[in-house]
């Protein structure tokens, strides 16, 4: 899963300091394997160099961890392209797909579209495998079937997630930590206001996505 793209998605939701990005990433996507600070700052340096993020503010005291980063227009374009592009159907996609759905909701996009585009991509490969199976011998059939059953499992997950988007949006709205405000507020003390704009956005995004809230059968 791409750390850079995930950072960009989080930064589109709101500007953040490097250590906040790390914290949100670890909580949301880390799966028990937290990022190293080295990774965080090398990723941010790369994004900065390619013009996808900018430094939004620097707190007194300097040092890399004092910088607050914001996404640029080019960065938003990059996130949009990444979210719209289906992943190549492959094993162990779940981290990436999950991240895309969460970031889609956090940035106020139609998360149902992300799932639909991926479903279409999966089915396209399934059709190819099904045709190959029709022309092949038993060995081909068994090998294609192995892939087909795994792709079908992914699709069931996509369908179930589509049915749970509203629920996920609500959960995200109540659990995503609000970014700290600018340097002035940060200095003022730990009591930064909670429940800022990204959380509020997430709630409407799922509704706009038109998800059903129904569970799929079987």
């Amino acid at each position, binding site marked *: 899963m791409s750390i850079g793209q995930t950072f960009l998605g989080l930064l589109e939701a709101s500007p953040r300091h490097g250590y906040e990005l790390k914290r949100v990433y670890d909580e949301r996507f880390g799966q028990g394997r937290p990022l190293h600070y080295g990774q965080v700052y090398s990723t941010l340096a790369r994004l900065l160099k390619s013009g996808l993020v900018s430094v939004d503010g620097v707190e007194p005291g300097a040092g890399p961890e004092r910088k607050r980063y914001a996404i640029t227009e080019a960065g938003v374009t990059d996130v949009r*392209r990444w979210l*719209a*592009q*289906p992943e190549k159907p492959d094993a162990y996609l779940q981290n990436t797909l999950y991240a895309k759905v969460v970031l889609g909701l956090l940035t106020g996009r139609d998360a*149902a579209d992300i799932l*639909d*585009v991926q*479903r*279409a*991509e*999966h*089915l396209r490969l*399934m*059709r190819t*495998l*099904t045709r190959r199976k*029709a022309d092949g011998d038993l060995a081909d059939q068994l090998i294609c079937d192995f892939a*087909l*059953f795994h*792709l*079908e499992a992914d*699709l*069931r997950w996509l*369908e179930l997630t*589509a*049915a749970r988007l509203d629920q996920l949006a609500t959960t995200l709205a109540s659990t995503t930590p609000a970014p700290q405000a600018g340097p002035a507020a940060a200095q003022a003390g730990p009591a930064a206001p909670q429940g800022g704009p990204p959380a509020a956005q997430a709630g409407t995004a799922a509704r706009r996505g*038109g*998800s*059903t809230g*129904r*569970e*799929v*059968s*079987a």
Partner: protein
Amino acid sequence: MSTEEQPLLAAVALHKAYGATPALDGASLAIRAGEVVAVMGPSGSGKSTLLHCLAGIVRPDAGAVRYRDRELSAMPDAERSALRRGEFGFVFQFGQLVPELTCLENVALPLRLAGVRRREAERRAAEWLARLEVTDVAGQRPGGVSGGQGQRVAVARALVTAPRVIFADEPTGALDSLNGEQVMRLLTGAAREAGAAVVLVTHEPRVAAYADREIVVRDGRTRETVLADR
């Protein structure tokens, strides 16, 4: 969808409610001759209702269904029934064969109803049973054959009148993987050979993968997926 080719069957902005329950809420789709289209979506999303509207079994509250250049809801009932018998074939999840008749007689039945003589009807029925690889159950009644065999007999019966469109609602819903695969291979194979279009309702991705493309129904609306350029 290509614009130069006129669709064989098209639904435009269908609405249908059962009392206060909305089943379709602006569903549209177009099917070209000989095309196999899977209709997918969660349970209760309106797939079967869409299929029934397309087949002229259910009349939508609003919207239009066009077959070739004719509007189904504008047809007199008798004409619509004639169209269903002559141009459409149906395969459902189960319960569609007449229990008192043998499998051969079941397949011959649509031809008999269309006035074909018994010998000729049964000769053609036997050909279709062979094509669907179930010749051995010809003399048995549906109650005595397996689910997979029964579905293949049902497919033979749907195809025997050389329909232009086959409507299949969860045709593998009651079958295990292997039998489901066989039914789909034979159904789509035979339909493609005969140039019949297939509207295939299923929520199983592996079944939908036998189609040329898929349409997703959510909350009574059809969703078209436009893949990002690459």
